């Protein structure tokens, strides 16, 4: 049933042109991340390998691959579905755990950089507070509430 969910997105019509990978920003930085390879593994049904691995967490969901796939395969969605599967089967990878920890601590998935502040200033947005105590209190309360 889970695999259906993914089939729906045209997985099986992939004819391996590699355009997704060619255009993948993540791949430029981390060559081990190869969307076409993920699709191929899926088509082969090697779900576990994917779910246990951390590749699926690396996608920035920029949708370039989906945008340009000649077969109209919703590559990004497929990766998202994989993440959902991983989550459901409680086989969250370390990478996700790290993100979770950061979230609970700072309320953010990644630390705010000077660059970010500059950008916000440009955009006329108020500066972000560095103080995360409030956040952690909220989460604690939430946890306490069950």
């Amino acid at each position, binding site marked *: 049933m889970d695999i259906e969910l993914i089939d729906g997105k045209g997985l099986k019509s992939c004819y391996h042109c*590699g355009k*997704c990978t060619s*255009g993948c920003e993540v791949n430029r930085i981390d*060559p081990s991340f190869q969307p076409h390879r993920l699709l191929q593994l899926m088509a082969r049904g090697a779900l576990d390998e994917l779910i246990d691995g951390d590749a699926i967490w690396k996608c920035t969901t920029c949708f370039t691959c989906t945008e*340009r796939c*000649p077969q109209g395969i919703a590559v990004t969605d497929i990766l998202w579905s994989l993440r959902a599967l991983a989550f459901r089967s409680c086989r969250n990878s370390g990478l996700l755990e790290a993100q979770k920890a950061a979230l609970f601590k700072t309320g953010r998935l990644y630390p705010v950089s000077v660059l970010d502040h500059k950008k916000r200033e440009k955009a006329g947005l108020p500066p972000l507070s560095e103080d995360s105590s409030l956040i952690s209190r909220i989460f604690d309360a939430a946890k306490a509430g069950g």
Partner: protein
Amino acid sequence: MSDIKIGVFLCTCEGEIEKTIALDVLAQEASGRAGVVSVRKDSSLCSERGISAIREDIDKLGLDRVLIAACSPALKTREFADLGINKYMVERVNFREQCSLCHADNSEHATKKARAMLGMSLEKVRHSKALEPVTVPAVKTALVVGGGVAGINAALDLAAAGAEVFLIEKNPHLGGKVSELHRYYPRLCPPSCGLELMYSKLESNPRIHVLTSSEVESLSGSPGHFSVSIKTTSPGTIKSPEEYQVRTIIAGAVVVATGWEPFDPRPLTEYGYGRLEKVITNLDFEKSAREQGQFLAQQKKTAFIQCVGSRDERHLPYCSDVCCMVSIKQALLLKQANPDNEVIIYYNDIRTPGEYESVYRQARTSGIQFVKGIPSELRQDEQGKISVSVFDLMAGERTEFAADLVVLATGMKASRGTTALKDAIGLATNKENFIESHLQCHPQDSQREGIFTAGCCRAPMDVSRSIESAGAATAKALRYLQGEMAVSPDYPVVDILKCDRCKRCVEECPFKAYSYDDKGFPQVDILKCRACGICMGGCPIGAISLGELSIEQLSGMLDVLDTSYLGEDEPVILGFLCKNDAYRAADDAGLKGIPCPANLISVMVPCSGAVNGMIIAEAISKGVDGVLLAGCADNQCHYLHGSALAKTRLADVSNKLKEMYLEPERLRFASISRDDPEKFAATVKEYAEELKQLGKNPLRIQ
């Protein structure tokens, strides 16, 4: 009716049939039947002796109808073709394949079924009428639309075969896309020489009339004598005597060769065509190569990107067929012009069928790089080079290439000319706007009788295949250019005494063969008609009959069908079998000796769509337990939507049955393909079992 003289001929087929069927008993019974003047049994009717015996009886006894109980009517057609009596007065009943052979295990049942079959066929032949072929004019003039390489070749071939040819081209000049090319493949010679040769042949042939800057305005009439009005927007034909300006011509056949158009890659913004001047299409490449002497030598680093727009669900869902060879050709030209030129072809699949493979090989060995992987986008770098970044699927790593030139291998799409023609004469096109044809069996036929396709107006193809298809189209067209042609009288006849002008036949005819006469009655164009009988099947009042199979015959056969010929407890199934598939499958079941219950009696119909709802209703009313319509699968129907319509009509009757508190299961449609006798046998077996469970048709007790 009383004065008819039927001769019944029973073939033992060298004892084969008689092994199972008690022919002597049947012979005796038959001799007692009304209208039967002679019954003869023979060991081999199809033998010369047998045939002459039949002919003898016909003369001696003055038979006006002949019933041959032997092998399948699909077999020995040549032997029984001419018995010295109108062939529509000869009826064949399938004792061998569909009785003795497939019921070898139960000769009692076989004989009972044979008895019923014989009775029905007697009734059928009793109601048969003598028909003669109709001859219609087929003028020796052909029209070719499109002056590209396909059109020119069609024109030349037609003229060579003795036809008067009008070749019309919407542009001021002939030659089409080919005239824009630098080189042909595989031989890499310039197209000009080929074209020049063709032009001169056109010139020198007095039977060919070339009209450039001309388009078809409208087309009416029928194959053999279409009337086509042609609009010539400006003069300037290769040979343009005044009388060829604006005119209506009568043409026996039309060859459509409206060619193709290049796909415009602008929608794929990632490749920046039109924005980055170093990014060109393969057709631009040909132009530059033709026009700029040094172009080929100058390209130091060139990248080709394949499948741009083609095999792309969002643009051209099909493969454009030529792009692989075009890129390989162009790459080779670059290498030949300067061996130092660096060329990479980024591909997805390389498709070089047949001898083209050798060109591909030549390309690889000549140092052209092939990288499996398609760039996702093109960027111009500081030095103005185009940076191509691809993940090389073979190497499993990213590779970068800074190109001076990037050639997009864009594909072919249907031309505006094709669309214009479609609108002008209403020709069926597929969803990609290429002209629709029965690709598999009749690639050259358009959906309209007498109109044929040559070249890329039907599908992308390269020069040599275009020329090939032109030849094929010509051969097909010639049939309509013989001065006159005989049409077999199988076409439907509308009984206007019954017809209520409800127009259903006109609406449902897959070949648009119907039009209205001055009183609003439907009339069929016997040349457009393919005698599928879909109109006969659809007529709400049974006013339409085919030459070879009339409503009266069908209903007559039902009148005499003994609905308990196998006894009270055995269900009787009436099977209407499509003669293209199901009927042949049933024959094969017999030939292969696949046992099959005798509960089904088959009636051969041209298409399951030819079976009228009233006939089905009649069968049920007269106590038949089940009606089986066996036709092709929807997408395989030889008459487009025949079997689909058959299903709707069947559904209408089963709705009625439901209301009448009868089991809709008594009607069934089965798709049985010609090569699946096992499925046929299984279907009959299953259905008979099911009907047994269902019990007698309540109307059978009436």
